[in-house]
Structure formats: structure tokens, C-alpha cells
């Protein structure tokens, strides 16, 4: 009996360890405001993504944040915002880069000397501005994250895009990167509901 208990505990431990290693995404509201915050956790604890980045395979994270309003029959989707992160490692320089892609904007490239620095940046809660409701009602945000790797061709295009050779912020590979890729992993999260104005 004791052996069964030990085995069960061991299995539970294994399961919980495995669960802890899965990438997660969180969508929360900032304290005292209706501003959403997005957090991606354990990305590099997941062996498939850790190995991909170690092997210099670029990783793409496609985010889609939707604002929903409670309605009688079904919820109303008020707006939908997309952005993407592309994480890559330049093996020779031993530098990690995080590129933020937003439609119509110049890409933002951040560089990190170690994976740990990059992990801290990725796991920091990311406040999202300019997406809030402009009317009264009960609302919430839903977040969809698709994670995939970039093929060699896509990465070549992506590098050219970064260097301004593929049509600027809105078109070409930039727009393609903002579209949800066929993800290897797809995660969703929702914030708590909040009310704006006196009448829900």
C-alpha cells in the first residue's frame, strides 16, 4: 500500500513538474484600471521551444487580444489587436534578439546577452494600451497566443523586412508575420469581467 502511495506521489510529482514546464499565457487587468496586461510564462522551460532557440530556430509568437462586450445573446467583439514577437539567436555573436512587430509600425528590435535576460523580458507583464472600451457596459479581454517556428525562407524574408527591404511595417512579410501562423502550440486566456459606467 505504501509503495502504491509512493508511486502515486511520484507520478503526481512528475505530472506537476511536466505541467510546470508547459508554456502558459496570462491576461489580467492592471490594479485599479481596465488596462489589460499580458504575460507569457515558461516559454523556455518547455523543451521544444528551448531546444528550438538553442538550435537557432527562430520562434514566432502571434498574439491576438480581443475586447468583448457582454450582450444578451452572444458577446460582441468590439476590437481585435494583433502583434507578434520573433525570438531568434545569432549563434556567432551569441546574442538573442526579440523583435516586436505591430502593423504599420517600425519593428522594434531588442537584444539580450543571455537567454536569462530574454526570459525575464518575455515573462514581464506586458501592459497593452489603446485597446479599452469607449462606451458603457460589461467587458472582458480574451487573448490568443500561437507559437510556431519560422522556416528558413520565412526567416530570410523576415531579416530583409527588418532591414527595410520588404515593404515597410504594414505589408509583405510584416503583415504575414502578424497573421496567425499554423501554430505548434496555441494558448488562450481571458481577463476578469469589468464594468464601465453605471449600467452593465
Amino acid at each position, binding site marked *: 500500500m505504501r509503495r502504491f502511495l509512493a508511486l502515486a506521489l511520484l507520478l503526481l510529482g512528475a505530472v506537476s513538474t511536466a505541467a510546470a514546464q508547459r508554456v502558459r499565457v496570462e491576461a489580467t487587468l492592471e490594479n485599479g484600471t481596465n488596462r489589460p496586461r499580458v504575460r507569457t510564462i515558461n516559454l523556455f522551460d518547455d523543451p521544444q521551444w528551448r531546444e528550438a532557440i538553442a538550435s537557432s530556430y527562430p520562434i514566432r509568437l502571434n498574439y491576438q487580444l480581443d475586447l468583448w462586450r457582454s450582450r444578451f445573446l452572444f458577446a460582441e467583439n468590439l476590437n*481585435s489587436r494583433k502583434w507578434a514577437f520573433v525570438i531568434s539567436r545569432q549563434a556567432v555573436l551569441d546574442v538573442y534578439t526579440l523583435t*516586436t512587430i505591430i502593423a504599420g509600425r517600425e519593428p522594434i*528590435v531588442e537584444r539580450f546577452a543571455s537567454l536569462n535576460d530574454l526570459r525575464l523580458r518575455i515573462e514581464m507583464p506586458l501592459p497593452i494600451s489603446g485597446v479599452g472600451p469607449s462606451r458603457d457596459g460589461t467587458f472582458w479581454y480574451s487573448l490568443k497566443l500561437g507559437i510556431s517556428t519560422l522556416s528558413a525562407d520565412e526567416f530570410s524574408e523576415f531579416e530583409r523586412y527588418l*532591414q*527595410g527591404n520588404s515593404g515597410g511595417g504594414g505589408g509583405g512579410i510584416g503583415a504575414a508575420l502578424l497573421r496567425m501562423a499554423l501554430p505548434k502550440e496555441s494558448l488562450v486566456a481571458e481577463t476578469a469581467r469589468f464594468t464601465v459606467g453605471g449600467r452593465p
Partner: protein
Amino acid sequence: MTPTRLVLLATLMLAPPLAAQDPVGIDFSRPAADSSRRREIPDSVLVRAMAHYNDPSTTRVSGNVELPLGNVWRGTQALHRGQLRIDGRVEGDLLVINGDVRITGSGVVTGSVTVLGGRILVDGGGTVGGAQVEYPETAPLTLTPDGRLIRQAPRRSLTDFTSASRTFTWRNFETTLRADPGSYNRVEGFPLEFGPSIVWHRNEQSRLILDLVGIVRTASDPTESRRTLGWRGRLAVMRNGQHPMTIGLRGGSVIAPVADQPYQTIESGLGAFLLRRDWRDWYAMRSIGVFADLTLRPTLHLSAGVDQSRERTVSAVDAFSLLRGNEAWRPNPLVDDGKYLTFSASATLDTRDDRRRPTSGWYLRSDVRYVTSDELTPATLPQEIRTAMPTSNYDALEMDLDLRRYQRLGPEQSLHVRLTGGGWLAGNRLTIQRRRAMNGTDPLAGYGFRFVNCDRRRRPDPALPALCDRQLAVQVEYRRTLDLNLSSRIGNTTVGLQRPDLVIFGDAGSAWLAGSGAGRVPSNRIQSIAEWRSDIGVGLDVGTFGVYVAKALADPEPIRFGLRVTRRF
């Protein structure tokens, strides 16, 4: 959070290790940047870089290179396409073309460091004696086979992959030679299209475009109803600014599809080439006209045109198809030959989040056409289909409408609704090439091709022409992404099913003859809903293609299976 992580986090926030340009966070309230303001590498810098690189005394390397600690390079060093890590010492200047350089804490460069198409990273302790010049934009330079650095012609865009093209630039003129297979059909075979597109960039605000396309038809026509060669062209002035506008002339001698066009162009071409099923009818058109396009907002587009055309019947020929080569092609129906003057206007509102795979937003397209003719030779149709047509003083007003709503119901599900229709509004009856039908598969997946085509003759035309005055259809579909991954990666290519969409749909629609008389629907009404055809079905859309099964609700039609290489709508 442990103290160590807190210290690391604070360090990151206060002084990010390697230049985080923006504070953490995403602000969608900021206006979009003007991408045209990207900093280009000045011509003088490119010229200097080429001179340095091509100088015989320069040491040239390419690819990923490391200079280890304790090693010394002397003289000017140049790297093309790659990454350079300097742990050692460079006594001289350093030039990197389309690559990055990192000078580590032990690295020293006594001269200047110039990076075109990349970035310079200097760690704490790293030394650069001279100037640091950095242009992240790709340097438009390339190597010749003998290793000289020269200017590069502009690169093709991603959308050009379906056609072969080559672009040459001379001063402000950009010439693109293009070749495209066109859409396969039973009248032309492959209409091979080729020709130049010349763009004169007059200034930042305007450009002049001349497109000339020659067409070679691969299938021979023993009836000589059309020529082997065709052409089309366009001369236009484009003006940028807050409301981009294009005005121009257009013309051509082409084989054009009639108004009734089930399926997308690519599906029609594939059906004809592979299965000997050409879902469109064709006529020969020679035309010349003027047009104007105006973009009022990124989501709102208006256009108008006036065209004079000569239109006439062409025959289906014995074009090749991969399968069913022994079957005869469906004949190409007669059209009303004549010389037409067409005034057209269209408006498009498109607020969809993604044009390829939309999940939210509106799409509205409306076209109105006023067609006149003083030289008309109409084909004979029975009175119960069309009243007698004049041979001069002909005029008719018609319109098309396509209204769609994409409504997201959740992160993985959405509801799509479409109202589509078109046809006669006023004036004389429509010519055959402008008439409609209610088509199976697209939009009604549960029915066959031109299930309602208004051909009331005792012996219907085997060409199955679309002969209705009006057509209207409603489509509703619910999509849910399935968390299903049946794929594997072979090299860089993913093969298999990845998160397909389950599609549950219903369609209803009809086509009818308008006017007074038996079997016609009064002009100011639509056909009674009770007489509409309807179907329900289910499908699986994997992105590149979708498979569907549908059943007609009222008619004893068999269950129909369909394969689409584009979205239903």
C-alpha cells in the same frame, strides 16, 4: 520572486543589457508610422563602401567569422553577409555589408567600424578607435562572380512568386518584365501573358505607369473565332498622399468571362486543366476606356470607368486536360455580339482583420453598370426567357452586391454571413454575357452547376448558359478551430493537418426572370423565399484547401462532396 531575480529584473528595467529601444509595453493608441520615412543608406555611403570593399588592399571575408582573443588582423577588413565577432584586435578599419558585428569586452578595432545593413554591438570594455557608422537597412549591394561588390537590382516582392519577373532600374525608371500562365480555360488553353511594366517615379508624390501585356493562347482554334494572340494594356498616373488616386487609360483584346462566375479564378482554372470542367463561359472583347480609382480611407475604395468594347462569341476548342481527355468540353454559349459603351462605378468597404482568413469585420462591394449600344446583334432567345432586343438604342442598368459580416464569437470560433446577388435593374433586358444563374457548389454547395439557369426551352442548350435576370443568395457559416495537429516536419516544411477549421454551413439562394408575365417575378420584388433552394453542410478547412459535404434540403439531389482551394467566402 527571489532577490536574485529582483536584482536582475531591476537591472533589466534600468539598463537593459543590449539596447532595448522602447519601454516595455504595447500602445495601440499611437498613430501608425509612415513606413516611407525609413532611413535609406545615402548613395555616397554606398559608393564609398564599394570603393573600400573593392580596393585590392582590403582583406575580404564572408559568412560567420570569429577573431579569437590574442589574434590580430592588420589593414582594412571587410565582411559581406554574415556575423563577425571580435574577441581579438583589428588594426585598421572594419566594414561589414549586410551583417552584424559584435566587439566583445576584449575586442579592439583601432580604426572606424562601418556596418551597412546590420548593427554594431560593442560590449563594455570593447574599443573602437575611430567612428562608428551604422545603417540597419539592407544595403542594396551584391557580389559579382569574381568577388566585386556592385549595386543590386530591387528585389521581387512576395506576391510575385506566382509569376516570373525581372526588374531593371535606370534613373527614375523601373521596368519589370513579367510572365504569367493566366487562368486555364476551354477557349484559350493557357493564356500565356508576358510583357513589361514601366514605372516612372516622377517624384515622391506621383508616378506614371505603363503596363503592356501580350497574350499567347496555347490551344489552337480551328473555327477561327478568335486570334492566337491578344493583348491588354494600361497607362496610368498614380498620386500618393492622404487619398491616393489613379487615373488612366486601359484597353485590350482579351477573352473575358461572362458575369456569372462561380468559384474563384484559380479554382476555375484548376477545374478546367485537371478535370475538364470549365465553370465559366467566355467571350472575345476588344475594349478601350478611361478609369479612375480613389482610396478615401484605407478601408474605403471607390472606382469609376467608361469603356467602349466590341464583344462577340467565341467557341470552345479541343483544349488539353489532364483527366477525362476523351470527353467533349461543355460548349461555350452564344453571347450578344455588339459594340457597347459601359459606364461603371464601384465602392468597396473592407474592415476585415485579415483578407485571407478573416474572422471579424465587414466587407461590402457594390458595382453599378450602365450599358448602351447602337450596334447590337442579339442572339435569339425565346420570348419566355427574354423579350425582343433592339439592335440600336439599347440601354440597361445592372448591379452586383457582395455584403459580408465576419463576427467573432470567441478566440477559436466565428460566425460569417454573406448576402450576394446581382442582375438587371432597369432599361432593356440584359445581354447574355451579363445574365446570371443560381450555381451549385458556389454559392450553394448542395446543388449542381447552374442548377437554376432559367433556360425554359423544351430542349435546353447543352452549353447551360446563365439566362436569369437576377440572382440572390445568403450564406451562413460557423467556424471553429479544432485543436488537432496531425502533422510532421520534413526539413523546413510542415506536412499534414494543423489546427483545421470545422465549418458548419447553410446556404439559400435563387435566380429568376424579372418582369410581368407567367413564370416571372415582378420587377420590384425578389422571388418568394419559399421558392429558394437551400442546403446545409459541413466541412474541414485546413487553410490551403477545404473539403466539404453538403445536402440540398428541398430537392432530391445527392449528397455532394466538394474541394475548394480558397475559402467559401
